[in-house]
């Protein structure tokens, strides 16, 4: 849940007075033309924007009622809880095995048996256990782009997050791979809250429960996907989804 969120890069205001609520166990899609702030909004939710010089944030972001900008929030714990999948798959240049257990190893020194179990669960969760179980020691960079993206999701699942943020997760993939990742998202939403940023309206229409349209840093409207696409309240939304610009 967001309250009156403003975000500035230096003097440029990237997000303007955003109020929104993202429900549990649903997929919310953020759409809008490039530069509208949708990725920025996403990266605010796990405070990845903190890494950028000169960023100033006002307002509140509450996750399960707790303000993530509060003084007692441990950044590493927040990011563990709010996992993120990036636009381009970014497996580490390590083996498949080491990629998946990277997270658990950060947060403790679990015994080998436990790691094996996490590994199995995470890779099964992204439906690629059978594909890679015989080559866990090979470099993750040898996988196809789609497999790499799945691996990145598996890497997230291994630290048991509650929320998954996805920043155009399919933009580097071909149509078939896109479809399979979308299926995977439907599977995952049973256990996770998913927020996805996409520039592909058809994808938002196909794969999400709620959609939010952003334009020039404002959240113009947010509602059930069916309604946004059939009966948009705002003319800007309508212009965008009918392709007048973008």
């Amino acid at each position, binding site marked *: 849940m967001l309250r009156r969120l403003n975000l500035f890069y230096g003097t440029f205001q990237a997000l303007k007075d955003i109020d929104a609520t993202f429900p549990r166990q649903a997929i919310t899609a953020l759409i809008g033309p490039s530069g509208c702030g949708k990725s920025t909004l996403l990266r605010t939710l796990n405070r990845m924007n903190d890494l950028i010089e000169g960023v100033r944030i006002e307002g509140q972001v509450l996750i399960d009622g707790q303000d993530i900008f509060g003084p007692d929030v441990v950044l*590493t714990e927040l990011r563990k809880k709010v996992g993120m999948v990036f636009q381009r798959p970014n497996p580490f240049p390590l083996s498949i095995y080491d990629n998946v257990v990277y997270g658990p190893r*950060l*947060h*403790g*020194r679990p015994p080998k048996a436990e790691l094996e179990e996490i590994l199995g669960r995470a890779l099964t969760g992204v439906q690629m256990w059978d594909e890679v179980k015989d080559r866990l020691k090979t470099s993750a960079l040898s996988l196809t782009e789609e497999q790499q993206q799945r691996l990145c999701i598996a890497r997230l699942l291994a630290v048991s997050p509650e929320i998954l943020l996805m920043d155009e997760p399919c933009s580097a993939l071909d149509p078939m791979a896109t479809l399979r990742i979308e299926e995977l998202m439907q599977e995952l939403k049973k256990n996770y809250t998913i927020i996805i940023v996409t520039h592909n309206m058809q994808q938002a229409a196909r794969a999400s429960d709620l959609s939010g349209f952003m334009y020039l840093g404002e959240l113009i409207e947010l509602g059930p996907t069916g309604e946004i696409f059939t009966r948009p309240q705002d003319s800007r939304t309508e212009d965008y989804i009918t392709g007048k610009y973008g």
Partner: protein
Amino acid sequence: MRLDPHLSQRLVKTLLWTLTGVTLLILIFIIVDIAVKGLPQVTWAFLSQDSTDMGRAGGIFPTIVATAYITLLAILLASPLGVGTAIYLTEYTREGWATRIIRFGSECLAGVPSIILGLFGFVLFVLKLGLGWSVLSGALTLAIMVLPIIIRTSEEAIKAVPQDYRTACYSLGMSQWQTVTRIVLPSALPGITTGIMLSIGRSLGETAVLLFTAGAALRTPVSVFDSGRTMAVHFYILAREGISMPNAYGTAAVLVISILLINIAAYTLMQRLMKRYG
């Protein structure tokens, strides 16, 4: 027991910052020591008078002239070669065995230690070509030394010119050479200048090469066939043979300050360049 990640991060950061601090202190110490002991020696007379009594007395005028003479000549020789190489590598050829050999040659040349260059210059220019210990022998050898620097910086500068410019030029029906001379080189000029300035800095401080190619005659060179003692060589002789510590410090101060000024200027130029292209 496993260290808390936040605690271990703090420990490591402290260690790394300490070591960085030590490095900086060494640098500051060097500059401050040279400045404090050397600058009082540097007067107008010191800069403008001839050396007398092996450099025990008098100024360093002949060494300034020799340094400028040799350095400029070396840069004049090396710049067209270096920039030409860079243009060839970036614009006129595709990656292949030729570029690999040229790049490898330039990298190896950059790694050749100055004493080997000194030996080479001594045998080829001084002895075989009969140029003797001279400004020309020194400049030729120095030119080979700075060639890789100019090649590398020019290549980077030319590569940094946005590909869009070239595409735009070609789609306007410009030939390759027109594109290079009218758009690419002007855009890369600041970067190329940076490389040339770094080469000057490197030449000013060089000793081993010049000791065996330009000689150490302590008088003002006039012709390119005269021997000349550069500031760095002069400083080395003063210090090593214990001729005059105050004059050694004075020479070092002039030398270090001119190199620092040139390098700072080169760096500032590079910064502006980087800002321009984001």
